[in-house]
Structures are given as structure tokens and as C-alpha cells.
């Protein structure tokens, strides 16, 4: 009887061990699935960060065709677009990486270009490398600003500008490479080899930075956001002074200039 009890006890222990083993196997499978999910997460994150790699930047179709008589010219690092004799002038400060600038373009871009085409408005576009460290790798703000000036030299600024905003890369992720910017220009019909050279060499980078330093210091361009006045993008200025982008601001600017 005593021996039988011992045998039964050891069986029970073995059974309990067997049950534990099944449980442990179940847990190991669970942990393995979790590990697989983590690897998947790493792959997904990297893919999302590099979503712009290997893409061809599509040519924006939403933009207005630039009307006959509209002159686009590069003046230093400012691009001036408008018909000669346009009475109203605004300065737009934007960064191709800045999400709110993308929103601004979506909301007002068409209206602005309509006014340019109508001959009522001249726009001075300032490309601002405010978020130059906020792409991964860094530098998309500057590269795109420089490329936009190169596109202005080739007479394709508006289409280039609109295409970059229409297909804006996300902040904190990969922007577009110089090669992709060059390809966009070529797709827009730029054939002059100086375009690619300007982009690759970063010809206007220093001038853009110098202008940006001046912009940051200009008290007239600062606005109260939260606490204290500071410069942000997008900023629209009339007569060198930043304005609030309240409902109907563009119509008011035009109306005032006609007055």
C-alpha cells in the first residue's frame, strides 16, 4: 500500500509536470508570436519612414495653368510671380516640409494662382528652411528650397512648387532626394542641364540660409503663437508685415489694393 502510494505520487508529479510543460509551450508560442510582431513592427516602421524612396514625384494636376502674361522671376532667393501691373503684393514664407504650409497650399493655393492669373496679385515666394533638421535624413527643406529656385530659373516654379506640396513628405520621415527633385523638374519639361547642376551643387543654399537669418530676426514677421512672438511657417506678409489668415483675407488684400 505504501509503495503504491509512492508510485501514485510520483505519477501525479509527472502529470503535473506534463501539464506545466504544455502551459510553458503555450506561453513560448505566445512569446514567439509577439517577437514576430515586433520584427514586423520594425519592418513596417522602416517602410513607412522610407515611403518616398524610389518614388517618382507626381506632377500636380490641381494647379492652375499659368496664364499668358504671368511672369515668374527669381530675385535672389525670392521668386516673384505675377503679371506686371498687379496692384496687390503678398509675401509668402513657407517650408516644403511644413505640414501647415501644405494645408495652406491646399486651402488657398488655387485662389492665389487665380488672382495671379487675373493680374490682380503678385506673390513673392520665400522658401524657408525652417524644418531642415526635421526630415530623416536631414536636409529636405533646404534641398527642396534650392530646387524650387532652380525651377524658377527654368521658368517652372509654380508647377514645381505645387507638385512638391501636393505630394508632401511627412515631417520626421524621408523627404525626396536630389535625384527625385531633378526628375520632377524633368517631368515638368525642364531640359536645361543647369537645373540638375544647381540642385546637386546646392547653389543657393548659403543665400537661402542668409535670407532665413534675416527673416527670423525681422520683428514684423513675428506673430504671437502661444507665449511670445516668434516666426513660423506659413507666414503671409503684406507690406512687409505679417497678417492673420482669417476668413477672406485674400479678398480683403485684393480689395484694399483696388481701393
Amino acid at each position, binding site marked *: *500500500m505504501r509503495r*503504491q*502510494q509512492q508510485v*501514485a*505520487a510520483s*505519477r*501525479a*508529479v509527472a*502529470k*503535473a*509536470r506534463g501539464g*506545466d510543460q504544455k*502551459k*510553458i509551450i503555450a*506561453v513560448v508560442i*505566445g*512569446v514567439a508570436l*509577439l517577437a514576430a510582431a*515586433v520584427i514586423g*513592427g*520594425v519592418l513596417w*516602421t*522602416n517602410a*513607412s*519612414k522610407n515611403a518616398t524612396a524610389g518614388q517618382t514625384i507626381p506632377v500636380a494636376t490641381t494647379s492652375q495653368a499659368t496664364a499668358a502674361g504671368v511672369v515668374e522671376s527669381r530675385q535672389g532667393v525670392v521668386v516673384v510671380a505675377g503679371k506686371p501691373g498687379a496692384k496687390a503684393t503678398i509675401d509668402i514664407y513657407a517650408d516644403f516640409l511644413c505640414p501647415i504650409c501644405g494645408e495652406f497650399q491646399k486651402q488657398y493655393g488655387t485662389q492665389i494662382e487665380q488672382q495671379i492669373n487675373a493680374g490682380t496679385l503678385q506673390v513673392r515666394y520665400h522658401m524657408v528652411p525652417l524644418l531642415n*533638421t*526635421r526630415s*530623416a535624413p*536631414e536636409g529636405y527643406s533646404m534641398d527642396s528650397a534650392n530646387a524650387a529656385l532652380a525651377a524658377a530659373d527654368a521658368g517652372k516654379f509654380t508647377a514645381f512648387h505645387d507638385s512638391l506640396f501636393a505630394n508632401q513628405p*511627412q*515631417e*520626421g*520621415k524621408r523627404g525626396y532626394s536630389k535625384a527625385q527633385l531633378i526628375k520632377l523638374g524633368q517631368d515638368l519639361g525642364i531640359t536645361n542641364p543647369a537645373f540638375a547642376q544647381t540642385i546637386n551643387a546646392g547653389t543657393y543654399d548659403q543665400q537661402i540660409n542668409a535670407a532665413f537669418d534675416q527673416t527670423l530676426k525681422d520683428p514684423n514677421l513675428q506673430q504671437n*503663437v*502661444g*507665449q*511670445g512672438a*516668434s516666426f513660423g511657417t506659413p507666414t503671409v506678409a503684406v507690406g512687409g508685415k505679417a497678417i492673420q489668415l482669417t476668413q477672406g483675407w485674400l479678398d480683403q488684400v485684393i480689395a484694399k489694393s483696388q481701393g
Partner: protein
Amino acid sequence: MLDALGTLARLGLAAVWLISGVVKISDTGQTYIAVKAYDALPSSLVGPVATAMPLLELVLGVFLLVGLGTRLVAVASGLLLLVLIAAIAQSWARGLSIDCGCFGGGGQVSAGQTQYPQEIARDTGFLLLAVWLLVRPQTPFSLDGWLGWGRGNSVALPDDYSGESYSEGN
């Protein structure tokens, strides 16, 4: 009572990690900016850390939720929280103006909008949960309990030991 508090601590900390992990992984660009803003890592490490952080948080959250390896996970949680608190503290000490990005967001903010004391206090609160679980990792409804871990002997004799022995006797 202690069991209830322990379960609350475990599920509470699980919720913290799961929520912050989900928010971070659903905006990977913002997470990258948030990590970068601490200005504490060489630029080659910002990307890997920004990728790993939400995943690590999610894994810790899942382990806590199911209650597996609670003591070990509590240690890992505590260490991660200490690192995060140190990162926030160094930003504060160096006069950076950043949002911790603890639950999404993050990056530079204007000088008056920093919330360093609140952020550190909050993380210290989470740290207390981790310390509780480190000291007393046994909680009801946990895989640890189901596996018989954390009760001393992992291979306990079944409760019906004597009954079984009689039924098998012949």
C-alpha cells in the same frame, strides 16, 4: 486587498505602455522628431531608438496585461522609466524647450510651454507602479499564476493527491 492593488498596478502600467506605444507607432515621423528633440543621441541612433521605443513599450504592455514574467517586466519598466525621466531632466537642466512626447506629440515647443515638472511627476507615478510589481509581482488573473510561477515551488503537488492515489490502488 493587496491582490486587488497589485492587479490595478499591473493593468494600470500595462495601459500606460500600450497607449503610449500605440500613439507613438501610429505617427512614426512625430516619434522620430520627439526623440531627436532630446538632443541626447548621435544622429545615427535617433532612427533606431524612435523605431524601438514604441515597440518596446507595446511588448512591456502586453507582458503586463497577461501577467507574464511580471517581476522581470517590472524591472524593465522601471529602468525604461528611469531613462525617460533622466532624458526629460537633462532637457530641463540644459534649458531645451521640448515636449517629452511621452504620449505622442513631442519636439520643440516655445519656451513658455514646457511642462518638465508635470512630466517628471507623471513618470515617477508610473515608476511607483513598477516598484510595487517588483516587490510584489503576484497578482490574480496572471499567466504567472496560471503557470504556478511566483508561488515558490513551480512544481506543486496537485491538491487531489491523496484521492488520486486511492483510485489507482489495486
